[in-house]
């Protein structure tokens, strides 16, 4: 049944292709404008800031359920745990706050960043592990609960702040952005799906009981508490799950490809408010 539904979505995705012009030139500012126009024109009734609420911006019934659930958010305990972890000193007496501007409070919207020293995209998760290692601590698993709790707390302190991703004038930064764009639009896995097949060509449509989220603002809700997981999951966990769902072997967590695609999608969401940690079915 899932296979049939996915094949139907793939056919729809193919039909949507003519909507997209064939011009292959690419630059971030033009991409940003076109990306935003695509979603606002396709969903004129959705307020721009509401796209960060993913499937709830697309489906009224689902939104009602979410609002009821959010009266007692299932992620509250995780945010509390993250807050405690964040404040707890390392063995050397320093804390996470010492690694970040403004002591790490209200800065989630500035990640991912391009790091000129390493020539790589640094996501918030990577920055947290860098902080741990710089202070003599072992890094956390990017797929597990501790990292999810820390990032959930940091997202919570940034709620409402507009995403603020910069691409510095460094050819390596632009290359990382473009690699992220390439990853997003490249079909993979036995089902021959790209990220865009679901989140550009089919937001609002169903895959079985799930409503597909729009790509616009999709990173603003990260990390997310998923009912199917019964817990909070990191960006890496979500991306790896996406890969598995289309029959592709997931890449290692926080691999270059995942960091780059997060960079690309976060840049596309510039100006939209942080809504994480989010809840999803």
């Amino acid at each position, binding site marked *: 049944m899932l296979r049939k539904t996915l094949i139907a979505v793939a056919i729809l995705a193919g039909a949507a*292709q003519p909507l*997209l*012009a*064939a*011009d*292959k030139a*690419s630059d971030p500012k*033009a*991409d940003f404008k*076109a*990306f935003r126009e*695509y979603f606002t024109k396709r969903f004129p009734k959705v307020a721009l800031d509401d796209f960060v609420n993913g499937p709830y911006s697309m489906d009224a019934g689902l939104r009602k359920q979410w609002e009821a659930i959010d009266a007692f958010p299932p992620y509250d305990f995780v945010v509390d745990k993250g807050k405690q972890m964040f404040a707890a000193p390392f063995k050397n007496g320093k804390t996470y706050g010492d690694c970040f501007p403004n002591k790490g409070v209200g800065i989630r919207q500035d990640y991912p960043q391009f790091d000129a020293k390493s020539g790589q995209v640094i996501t918030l998760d990577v920055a947290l592990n860098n902080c741990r290692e710089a202070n003599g601590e072992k890094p956390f698993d990017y797929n597990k609960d501790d990292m999810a709790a820390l990032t959930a707390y940091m997202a919570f302190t940034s709620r409402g702040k507009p995403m603020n991703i910069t691409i510095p004038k460094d050819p390596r930064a632009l290359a990382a952005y473009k690699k992220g*764009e*390439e990853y997003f*639009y*490249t*079909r*993979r*896995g*036995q089902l*021959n799906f*790209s990220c*865009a097949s679901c989140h*550009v060509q089919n937001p609002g449509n169903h895959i079985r009981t799930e409503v597909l989220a729009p790509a616009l603002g999709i990173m603003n809700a990260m990390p997310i508490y998923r009912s199917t997981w019964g817990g909070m999951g990191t960006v890496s966990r979500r991306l790896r799950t996406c890969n*598995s769902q289309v*029959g*592709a*072997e997931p*890449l290692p967590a926080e691999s270059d*490809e995942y960091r780059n695609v997060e960079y690309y999608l976060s840049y596309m969401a510039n100006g939209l408010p942080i809504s994480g940690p989010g809840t999803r079915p």
Partner: protein
Amino acid sequence: MRTRTIIRLAMVVSVAGFAGAAVAATADDFKVAYAKAEAAEKGAAAVKNRWIATEAALKKAKAEADAGKFDDAVKLAQHAEALANASTAQAREQEKLWPDAVIR
């Protein structure tokens, strides 16, 4: 007339059975097929596009071979090779096609 037909049928069946036995896969056949599949999967890994189904087929092929079922093991290895080649072809094709899907 009927007896002749039965004899002919019996001959056909016995020849077919002999031929079938003659082409039954061996451990060496499996080794060759599995090596080909593994090489194809390495190609898919090089373009970072391994498929879950390929890995599953490789694993199952190995399990069948371990159980001495070489006919099934060879078929599964060949299936894995085909899947791996398809995933590599997909990646190569997408290197050219992905820009066509970008929102402009």
